């Protein structure tokens, strides 16, 4: 019996193949420049600016788009171009093709002067300004709002505080119940954040560095995300198209803006630690966020293998909203797969567009 479960000859052969791939891959890598990594390429125009926020309107690609436009509110923790990562993996492009008039909030990168921005500034300030701009531009009383991840939580707060301005609300991979227990790596953020001294962190650091946040995300799968993922790089790099796909995703993952200190403080204390969204105790700008005020139609989209936002956390929404028109839909993907998985992008945009058209 040969006790060591490895075969040196075949391993060596495989190693040589990997090296051949790596040689081609390194050549490909060495030719690349930052400008070659195209992201967010769907045609768009800046229609409104406030501080560092920019509101973009994507150029419609159909003659008569839906009269009520859709505003996408993304999370603060990563850049919003994930919804238009590349031409063939783009939620935005798919929605445009289906006749949706799409707007997107780019929150920008908070600097030292944004450290004092509160959730009130984000929700009653920035989101409300964008909604008003769109209402005025389209001559409508109400618009459609799509909130993604943390942007979904913000959208829930906004919808509860300004229900008169929204026709429909869509939440995507949105945390609602922040105290659900996860297993097998799912929901770890909920338990990790509970013991953090948010006051101490903000008082010490001011804005919370994006790198600090990223470290937390990478630790959710420490070996797969920091080691395993890169072992395939030589094979990927040998194919320029695959390499660019890989690098676009890398760029997005590590393009993490710092978090405005005061907003982060409240988000951690009230949402993650206090779980106050579902108890109706969150206060934004002096008003309580009561999810029962969300009476417009709600479409709740979640990912079955989401390790950042456990499905149970998103699914909790149904029990708290006041709407009689509530739809929930699961997709067989992880948190990021919702935007880039070919299967999800085949099914999700048509579902969303059909749902909206039926309610316009």
């Amino acid at each position: 019996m040969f006790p060591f479960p490895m075969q040196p000859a075949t391993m060596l052969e495989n190693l040589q193949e990997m090296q051949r791939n790596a040689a081609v891959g390194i050549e490909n890598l060495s030719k690349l420049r930052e400008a070659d990594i195209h992201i967010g390429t769907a045609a768009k125009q800046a229609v409104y600016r406030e501080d560092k926020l920019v509101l973009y309107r994507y150029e419609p690609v159909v003659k008569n788009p839906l009269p009520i436009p859709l505003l996408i509110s993304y999370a603060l923790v990563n850049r919003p171009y994930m919804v238009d990562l590349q031409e063939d993996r783009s939620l935005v492009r798919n929605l445009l093709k289906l006749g949706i008039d799409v707007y997107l909030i780019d929150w920008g990168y908070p600097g030292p002067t944004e450290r004092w921005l509160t959730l009130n500034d984000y929700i009653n300030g920035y989101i409300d300004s964008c909604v008003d701009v769109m209402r005025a531009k389209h001559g409508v009383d109400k618009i459609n709002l799509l909130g993604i991840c943390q942007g979904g939580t913000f959208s829930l707060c906004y919808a509860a505080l300004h229900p008169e301005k929204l026709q429909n609300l869509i939440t995507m991979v949105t945390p609602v119940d922040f105290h659900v227990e996860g297993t097998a790596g799912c929901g770890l953020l909920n338990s990790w954040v509970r013991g953090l001294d948010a006051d101490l962190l903000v008082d010490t650091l001011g804005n919370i560095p994006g790198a600090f946040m990223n470290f937390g995300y990478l630790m959710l799968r420490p070996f797969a995300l920091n080691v395993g993922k890169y072992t395939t790089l030589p094979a990927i790099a040998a194919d320029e198209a695959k390499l660019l796909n890989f690098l676009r995703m890398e760029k997005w993952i590590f393009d993490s803006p710092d978090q405005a200190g005061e907003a982060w403080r409240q988000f951690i204390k009230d949402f993650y630690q206090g779980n106050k969204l579902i108890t109706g105790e969150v206060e934004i700008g002096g008003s309580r966020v009561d999810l029962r005020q969300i009476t417009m139609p709600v479409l709740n989209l979640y990912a079955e293998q989401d390790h950042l936002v456990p499905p149970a956390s998103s699914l909790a929404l149904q029990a708290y909203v006041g709407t009689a028109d509530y739809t929930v839909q699961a997709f067989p993907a992880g948190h990021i797969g919702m935007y880039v998985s070919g299967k999800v992008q085949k099914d999700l945009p048509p579902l969303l567009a059909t749902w909206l058209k039926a309610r316009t």
Partner: protein
Amino acid sequence: MNGWPDIQQKMFEDWWKLVATAMPNLQANATTPPMEAWLSDALDQWRTYAQQWSSAFPSDFAPGFMPQFADVTRVALEQFLASQQQSIQLMAMTGQAWQAIMRGATTPDEWPKALQAYVEQLRQQLNGSMDAFKTMQSSAELWQRYTDEMGKLGQPWLTHWLHLQQQAGQPSDPRQAAAAGAVKLTNLFWDTFNQSAGRLLGAPSLGLTREFSEKLNRSFLLWQAHQKADLDYQLLIGNTWLDAFAAFMQKLLAMAYAGEIITQQEKLLDLWVEVADKQFIEVFHADAFAQLQSTYINSSMALRRQQRELAEVWLRMHDLPTRSDLDAAHQAIFELRQEVKAMKKALRAQVPVVAAMPTPEPVAKPIKRRTAKPKVANVRANGAGKGIEGK
């Protein structure tokens, strides 16, 4: 690129020779170097090659690793190189463990027991090294470590200080300076303390030194608390790593029993990633881990904030701006910006009312002229001065 395959191949062949020495049917070669030597040699070769490779590219930008690459590409490549290093280390660890198991077992039935003994030995080493830190409770020792670590903060000023010393004809080499007693001045806190004490030597006690001492003592206590949190955290991570490694080796043993063969080097790493993640995630879910991690981060923040307070004392003493000053300035800018926004919004809301009102004539500052009587002139809204018509 040509050298890389050769290095990898040689590395792999050497490793395999080492592993083979542990096989029951092969005699260990007395001249075969230990696995540690292989690892050290392999890593050295890998680093040398990576450096040569990077220097082969033109460096027409800022210094750094492969600077002409796109940032994202560079980071991805660095991560790849790091993963290759981990792969080498994993091979060494695996080979070493296998050697130990084979030495401790005469039949396959004894492999699990031998593995357990090997892991236990590693665990004792880990815990023992941590205990050595923990038993260092003497305040003198702790104070020495604290001042050594905190002294690093003083480095930016050391250069300047040495320059001044040189100008004054005193030794500029840090070692000479140290011999001359100057090393004390590399320590930010002692430096600050001495300077504050020196300045206040002839002055009545106004409590300034008391405040500083309080800050210093508090910093020391926070540092101690952070040291403990750091050790506890490292110990847990270290033990989890050992558990993961034991689980990984058990997988390999199970494969050996079943006659399964790993045919690719990356499959070995894949197996490690899968097993290690599973083990770590299990620990990550425990309340004890969340608590330890929070304590670690919180203690780190508390120490950092206290260090800043001390640094601010030093900065104020030298009439330099502090982080608190900057924060105050940024906050003022933020609040002013908010006020301007609110005023603009209010103004926009008034636009219909204002538009209905008659437009007042702009008033310009009277201009003195020698030959003509000053007149009030019309000023174009966009051109100060240009719009003044001296009629």
